[in-house]
């Protein structure tokens, strides 16, 4: 079996090379936001690129600060979403990782993850003078009948929009293939997390964060499934069969990408993060629906950040139970208003259920909003609290 490392390298290269190749093949490129139904776009031979994911790469490569300050030159407020600031900064920055993203032909924005990304994409559409399609997802309440109809009509319009701008038709067989692989990938993605369901953990929690990229960049392909199968098979056994009774922690929310592949704070086998629930947000339900489009509606209208707050709190509570979590570290990510607004009530509800939780304030991509000492103090104090 090919190693997960080798498959990941190929997925990475293919994603960033696909833009250059698209230019040669005259294949249209769309910039999309997180949780856009890319299966539809890919079934219409559109290359999908994620500026948010690219902002993650910029942040992880240590360039975020410079890029964000560059974007300030364009008179953008520093307290906007750091992904968008990094993206705006790419215009003024020369040494971009992978040479930057290829120029898009169109923009597709959805508000099921972030309620402001479409404004960022609106600006891009004006600047680049290219068409923009916005998919509006109402908050996923219990009775979704009318919501589903509303989204279905938008998906029809999306298909028409792409057809109008590319002259490509929707290939039903390709769509079906995409949905099948997305479904399988999600099943496997859940199994990756479940490696850490019980002590001792099988896979470092940040390794799971790193393993998210294929789910975004190569969604709906067999390669993603191969990657997760390889990853699971490589981590069947714990590295250290230590019998230490560990305090098992859940990291709630976005990682801090600029910290170069780690969570902040000091952790060890006695006090360890077993899971970041942000990566579980990408485990979508593709199984409920009468046809492929209907399945996509289920998947994309039920994203974590599109849930009402009570559902989010219940879900985190379930994760805590399922993964035998002893404490939760909540990242109050100032860039993400939707996630930020839930943090205090979430902490309160967890506490009521006897699950201690601590809030640390920072940002997903902008290191200017990270204070190492303050964050470490909170985590260290939390450790003391759990230990005593």
């Amino acid at each position, binding site marked *: 079996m090919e190693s997960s490392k080798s498959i990941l390298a190929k997925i990475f290269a293919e994603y960033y090379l696909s833009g250059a190749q698209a230019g040669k093949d005259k294949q249209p490129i769309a910039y999309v936001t997180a949780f856009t139904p890319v299966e539809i776009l890919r079934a219409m031979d559109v290359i999908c690129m994620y500026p948010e994911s690219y902002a993650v790469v910029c942040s992880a490569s240590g360039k975020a600060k410079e890029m964000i300050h560059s974007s300030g030159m364009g008179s953008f407020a520093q307290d906007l979403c750091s992904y968008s600031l990094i993206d705006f900064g790419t215009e003024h920055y020369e040494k971009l990782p992978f040479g930057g993203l290829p120029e898009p032909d169109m923009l597709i924005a959805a508000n099921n993850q972030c309620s402001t990304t479409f404004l960022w994409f609106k600006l891009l559409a004006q600047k680049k003078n290219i068409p923009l399609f916005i998919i509006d997802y109402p908050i996923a309440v219990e009775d979704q009948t009318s919501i589903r109809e509303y989204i279905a009509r938008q998906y029809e319009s999306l298909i028409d929009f792409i057809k109008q701008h590319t002259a490509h038709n929707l290939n039903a067989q390709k769509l079906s293939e995409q949905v099948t692989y997305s479904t399988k990938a999600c099943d496997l993605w859940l199994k990756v997390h479940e490696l850490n369901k019980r002590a001792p953990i099988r896979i470092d929690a940040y390794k799971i964060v790193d393993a998210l990229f294929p789910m975004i960049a190569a969604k709906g392909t067999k390669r993603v499934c191969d990657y997760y199968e390889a990853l699971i098979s490589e981590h069947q056994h714990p590295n250290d069969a230590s019998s230490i009774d560990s305090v098992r922690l859940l990291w709630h929310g976005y990682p801090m990408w600029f910290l170069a592949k780690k969570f902040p704070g000091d952790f060890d086998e006695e006090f360890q993060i077993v899971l970041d629930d942000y990566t579980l947000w990408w485990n979508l339900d593709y199984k409920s629906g009468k046809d492929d489009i209907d399945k996509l509606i289920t998947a994309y209208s039920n994203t974590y950040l599109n849930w009402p707050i009570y559902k989010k709190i219940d879900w985190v509570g379930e994760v805590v139970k399922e993964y035998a979590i002893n404490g939760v570290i909540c990242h109050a990510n100032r860039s993400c208003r939707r996630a930020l607004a839930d943090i205090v009530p979430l902490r309160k509800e967890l506490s009521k259920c006897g699950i201690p939780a*601590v809030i640390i304030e920072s940002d997903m991509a902008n290191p200017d*909003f990270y*204070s190492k000492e303050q964050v470490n103090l909170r985590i260290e*104090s939390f450790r*003391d*609290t759990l230990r*005593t």
Partner: protein
Amino acid sequence: MKYFLGIDAGSSYIKLALIDTAGNMTAKSIIKRGADIDASCRQSYADLLSEFKIAKDHIAGVIATGYGRKQVSFCDEVITEITALAIGGFAVDNGVRTIIDIGGQDSKVIAIDEFGKVVDFVMNQKCSAGTGKFLEVTSASLGVKVDELDGLSQKADKVLNLSSTCTVFAETEIISYIAMGEKKENIIKSLHSAISDQVIGLFRQVTMGDKGKILFVGGVSLNKAMTRELSTRLNCELLVPQYPQYIGAYGAALCLKRKKENRSGSK
């Protein structure tokens, strides 16, 4: 006689508390933090020993807490201020179930149980709103010394709308109020109210069963206007210990004493 030294290397001041084997605080000192935390702590330690005529070999151990705890090179142990405050606060009065600490650059609310164990804590977020720094900066822009705050606050006849979320914005608003001819006393009263907003916000986030007695510690608790404001808002009396700035250092020293005693007891 053996002693245990607790050092609270805070963001504004370095506090030292020396306790004897009975747990009594026998000596204390406070100095403004210098740029070199370790050097400041060393100097303060040497001064304390000299002032109270204690030989160094009578010191059974040194423990550091506070923001600069990891910079103290000569300590035997470090603990976080949450733990130190819980131990110190519970030792002051074992009926205490909640500790409010407003220090130079952070404020915190700690809930403890009937054994003095921390059950929950909340700290202010990254900015300095709701901390001693907020009061220091904003009162400086009024040309008022910190020890004048109480008297002036009592002469206020109204509370103004003031930002409770940002020191910089609050300072700008103060300048606007001064320009509009607003009474200094009213602005000062409003500053205390703004800090209370922040602290009450933290207080409400803490999960606690029995609220018990509320202990108010940290440098800001020396400001009676702040104690009064918080008491009114919480609708209860706050317990302010005799030396509220030293509770962290005292708690740390007690923690070290217990650890050493446990170790020697288990041998």
